[in-house]
């Protein structure tokens, strides 16, 4: 007992103050960036990228990276002869619009929505979500076929360094108690049904956050017989958090972005 108290006194508080104070990210490997002035468009990184995240537009001779597909492996930096690709330290990459993460924008089929009011209702609802949840949030995590990397990082949100409950956010055991679904993995064949059930069990209004390259786009596992290219082919997604896996702070950033608590 005495030893226990001694330890509690020795480490009174180890929790960081992210996002109120910025994090020292000088050691991190964050997103890769291509310096267009140095790049000679040789296409080496393009052909060797393990997740085919680098794209080149032949007509405009423009090259770029789709961060929703990128697995942050730094191979492009290694293979670049002209040293145009650099891994940066930036890790706060979450976006509400997938196209903001992409160099080549997704062309989504335009459908005629029979009831025009539907869109307006939705946007009103979204605006209300923030009001209703206030500053507290209950999250249900769903692993839809990840490698367990993202889940370990989500677990790390509960460790003494991140302690997500200080932000009024907690994890709950059932989707019925949840305001937000935090989905990892690529929505594999055997989990699709469970994911849909969890989504339907979550009471409205609800937010879905896709965590990790697999959930955003399928990542390195896309285009296989048992995987899908991102969970947005199964359930609607509000915020995309790229990374393989994203750091705990990057996930916090994504969650807060979904609540409009960071700009």
């Amino acid at each position, binding site marked *: 007992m005495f030893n226990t108290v001694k330890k509690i006194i020795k480490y009174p508080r180890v929790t960081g103050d992210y996002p109120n104070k910025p994090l020292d990210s000088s050691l991190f490997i964050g997103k890769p960036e291509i310096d267009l002035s140095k790049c000679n468009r040789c296409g080496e990184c393009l052909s060797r990228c393990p997740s085919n995240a680098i794209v080149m537009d032949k007509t405009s001779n423009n090259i770029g990276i789709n961060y929703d597909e990128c697995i942050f492996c730094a191979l492009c930096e290694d293979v670049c002869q002209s040293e145009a690709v650099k891994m940066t330290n930036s890790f706060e990459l979450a976006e509400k619009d997938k196209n903001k993460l992409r160099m080549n924008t997704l062309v989504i089929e335009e459908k005629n929505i029979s009831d025009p009011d539907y869109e307006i209702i939705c946007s009103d609802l979204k605006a209300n979500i923030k009001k209703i949840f206030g500053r507290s949030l209950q999250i249900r995590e769903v692993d839809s076929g990840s*490698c367990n990397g993202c889940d370990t990082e989500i677990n790390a949100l509960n460790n003494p360094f991140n302690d997500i409950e200080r932000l009024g956010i907690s994890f709950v055991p059932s989707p019925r108690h949840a305001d937000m679904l935090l989905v990892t993995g690529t929505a594999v064949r*055997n989990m699709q049904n469970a994911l849909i059930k969890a989504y339907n069990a979550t009471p409205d209004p609800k937010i879905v956050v896709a965590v990790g390259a697999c959930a955003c786009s399928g990542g390195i596992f896309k285009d296989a017989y048992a*995987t899908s290219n991102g969970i947005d082919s199964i359930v609607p997604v509000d915020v995309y958090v790229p990374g393989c896996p994203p750091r705990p702070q990057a996930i916090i950033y994504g969650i807060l972005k979904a609540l409009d608590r960071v700009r």
Partner: protein
Amino acid sequence: MDNIIESKNMILTKLNSKLSETFSEDIYRSVVDNTNELYLEANPEHILEICTYINTTLGYPLISMFANDEQSLCDKYAVYYVFADREQGILLIIKTLVDPNKMEIRSITKKVHAAALYEREINDLFGIVPVGHPNPKRLVFHSNWPQAEHPLRKDFDVKHKLDFAKEETDFQKVTGEGVYEIPVGPIHAGIIEPGHFRFSVVGEPIINLEAQLYYTHKGIEKMCEGQSIERCLYVAERISGDETFANSLTYCQAIEKIAKVKIPTRAEYTRVVFAELERLTNHLGDLGGLCLDAAYGFATFQFRMMKGWAYWIADELCGMRFLRSVNKLGGVRQDFILGKELKTIEELKKIKSELEDTVKIIKSNSMFIDRVENTGILQTKIATDLNAVGPSGRASGLCFDVRKSFPYEAYKQLEFNIPKHNNGDINCRMNTKIKECFESIYLMIQAIETMPSGKLLEPVKTFEPYQCAFGLTEAPRGENIHWIMTGENNTIFRYKIRTPSFCNWPALCHAVKGNIVPDFPIINKSFNLSYAGNDL
């Protein structure tokens, strides 16, 4: 080095002549590959007798078993049975050919119990039926998968998405007065991976547990076929999130054997440092989880704090918390250790002294020890039959470690002990992991201090087609085996992954029997198996 090759060669020659004498008619061909792998081609009619002889008379455990579609090479399918002699560090591989018009093998499960899951896996992925299997239920595919489709056959297109079939799944039925079933999952209450557990219970004690896994089946083995060898390294890193380094190391080891490349000594030591760092991080996480499931909050947060410190070391060394992109074929990506030696050793010593204090505190807490002692016992006999590996096996008296029996990288030059316990309960598994944490810290400090300077990468570019090799390493959860056969143009022809979790899942199902339902989470945590690593 030459001495080792010679002595291994002698052992293999002896073994070969012994087997050829006993089964003179049934063994057609023998090849020695990669110094310690003996491939024998055997008559499929007598495979049961040969495997039983190797398993029971010679006492070699079955450590892996897989099939391969070799129709483009010899118009037949092949099934490989892999046995290991852990004392002498050799692998014995029995290969037998299967006629594509018949697609049947004789099941060896009744004699070699560890084969049960492998045969079911082969049946699902290749459609090769194990005749005489006591429980030929589907393993990899759930009821939504059409019966006649087998994705690892070469004529199956990897991008082909099949329609969902609608069938019911059968579970083992336990009947009797007062028996009821508790279904759990696939989505669990905690932040863990998906899997379905079906408990048959009377009152509180569990009579039977059937685990339906493969919810996270992604088709990794198929996905890698025909892909470049360089790209598959990154897939290997993503087999199981927290065993990133162990899996990439195993992959690199197999590929380097095929390319016949000796990696630089400094790279060998660097790999040891990272492999041990991963083991330390995982074990600290496991110990924290154990305390959490026993509702021992203080200890949980102590272990999580130490795990956080281990992640800091990883961040400082390579900028990646999960040690991704550290390995490269033929070495490591850059010199991660240079200039950071003293700081890393200092941090490790800090973790060590904190761990010593915390272990003292939890061991003097009788309420906690009461909970873990004699709970979830895995008997030595069951552990041997199922080939339980890693800390779970070592807690049940199976004292082997790939780092000792098949030394790789720089482990031969370093000094360390393998802990052994015999009781097989949670307490033993916990103590094994605590001991291994200290050994890992000791190994890392040794490796950093004795590391020679030099280059870190021996480039490997081209690979001979249709060569095969095993990669064997000790992952944090135990023995990790990858088998790779190269294809043309530096691609992968077949990639078989067998992670330690695959062996230990059935062991877990046995360990919970007779325990009460509320103890299941803590027993599960003491094994801490990977779902993704099992499901692939």
